[in-house]
């Protein structure tokens, strides 16, 4: 295994008196999917926000390709090739599909100070990216985001991240709002990104989804890494228990997930 693209060393994060992350050490490798698991409030979103430049670690180190880095803001993280779909938001109801797809990275034509936002190009690329994602109903980049369904919005956000995700793709519960078909599309996208050598960090509450794509699993319990293992090292039941914060949940979860497994292994019509 080559050096990790992204590495956290003893990272702590607190908001004032509230300690959210404790001494997190993790590595993300190229062409590998790291599944980040844990109960609600375990600190998953906080962890990926420190990777995405939204928060700065209170202490500890972030390394990219073995070199210490610190991201002043989301822009720096993006420039370094880290592209993130956050759990909430990310789309702008009153903006067009094309504009919202390229926020912060608008295609332009012409010269400063007369750089013009290239609407046609933006619309074309955005529509193509979403259609490749299986949302073929979207064919006009001038449509407003607010007129799309929740799943369509999420698909758009993921398509955007994939489009800009040069090296590391972070998805925070990307399948939460999605239909079965779109969810398996997301899983396929994740596998596709992995094949292209991108490092993927994938957060989910669904064991089935985690087991379908994960190479490497890290479980957070109350802000600390409670387990860190590779594919095949733990059984589905053990993972389920860990995800529930270490409580015995296996029986109930297994019943539910075997149910959803049936629908997920059906390949989508497209």
């Amino acid at each position, binding site marked *: 295994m080559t050096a990790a693209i992204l590495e956290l060393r003893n990272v702590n994060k607190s908001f004032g008196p509230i300690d959210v992350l404790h001494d997190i050490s993790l590595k993300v490798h190229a062409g590998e999917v790291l599944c980040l698991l844990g109960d609600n409030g375990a600190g998953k979103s906080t962890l990926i926000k420190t990777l*995405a430049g*939204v928060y700065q670690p209170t202490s500890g180190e972030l390394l990219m390709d073995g070199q210490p880095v610190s991201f002043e*803001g*989301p*822009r720096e993280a*993006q420039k370094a090739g880290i592209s*993130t779909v*956050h759990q909430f*938001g*990310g*789309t*702008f*109801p*009153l*903006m067009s599909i094309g*504009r*919202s797809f*390229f*926020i*912060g*990275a*608008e295609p*332009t034509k012409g010269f400063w100070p*007369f*750089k*013009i*936002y290239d609407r046609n190009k933006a619309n074309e690329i955005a529509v193509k990216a979403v259609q490749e994602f299986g949302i073929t109903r979207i*064919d*006009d980049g*001038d*449509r*407003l985001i*607010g*007129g799309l369904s929740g799943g369509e919005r999420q698909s758009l956000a993921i398509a955007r991240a994939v489009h800009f995700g040069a090296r590391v793709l972070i998805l925070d519960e990307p399948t939460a709002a999605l239909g079965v078909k779109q969810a398996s599309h997301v899983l396929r996208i994740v596998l596709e990104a992995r094949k292209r050598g991108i490092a993927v960090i994938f957060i989910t509450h669904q064991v089935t989804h985690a087991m379908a794509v994960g190479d490497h699993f890290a479980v957070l319990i109350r802000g600390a890494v409670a387990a860190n293992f590779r594919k095949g090292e733990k059984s589905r039941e053990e993972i389920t228990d860990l995800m529930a914060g270490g409580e015995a949940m296996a029986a109930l979860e297994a019943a539910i997930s075997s149910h959803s497994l049936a629908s997920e292994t059906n390949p989508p019509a497209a």
Partner: protein
Amino acid sequence: MNTFSFSDLLRRPESGAVLGLLFVLVFFVIFGSVEFLKPAGAASWLNVAANLGIVAIPVGLLMISGELDISIGAMIPAGALTVGIISGQFGLPIWVGIAGALGLGVIVGLINGLLVVNTAVPSLIVTLGTLFAVQGLALGFSVLLTGTTSVALSPAESGAIAKALFGQFIGGGFQVTIFWWLLFTAVYVFYVHYSPFGNWLFAMGGDRVSARNAGIPTDKLTITLFVLSSVSAAFVGMCQAILFNVAQVSAGMTFIFNSIISVVVGGVLLTGGFGSVIGIFLGTITFAIVNQGIYFTSFDRNWSSLIIGAMLLLAVLMNNTFRIMALTYSPKKK
């Protein structure tokens, strides 16, 4: 796709403003006379529109970004007094006075912006505070340094160039600020609707956190917008002082409500994320026509407030409808 259609027009933020403008035009032609469209009449409302419009556009951009700035009400007289005190009272070159007025705008804008960005206090409250602070400061200094709240600035002190650029009447009654207003509008239209900057603005107004997460420098942008509105207000005050040869403390407060009305009539969503510069431009003209057109009718001028009030409510209702149309629009075959 590029063919013109009425429904395409209706989905734009300024559609309500276009209808509003048509309505008041027809109204005042019927109840007044076409006189107010002829040069002498047009000058009266164009002058009002120009002074208001220069401030209304940055105020509208702030509203699109989800903020409010009411301190402009104090910045206009403060800008006027600054140039009056520096160049009128102390006789320094007019350019120093102009730089002083605009510089004060930059400072107040920075204070507004930094306070809004760095505290959790809503911009309405922050700028309410600076509104009173700046007003007090302007009054206090004016009395302290000149012994009066109305400072003379003679044409000789302004000088021919500054007078021609900022404070002359062209063709009888047209203030030169009309041209500044048109120029600024053109520049804003370009930057808001044709450059990437506009995209950032709308994203920020739509969802500030997501915009920041997408890498947009939201803090810098917000501060810039506050500086823009303060400087614009100082600019208007400075022009008025040079035009009328006197700087007064009084005028200014009406600009607060008038600019907000123009912006809302122009189709800007009060909660941010939606609007257009052309809409604000048309909203300003609409407001100015109602404000001045009443003199061309036989109605008592007090009725103009009723018209403006009714128009504002109507505009908000209409704009809601248009926005819903825009949201639910999906292109069917054409």
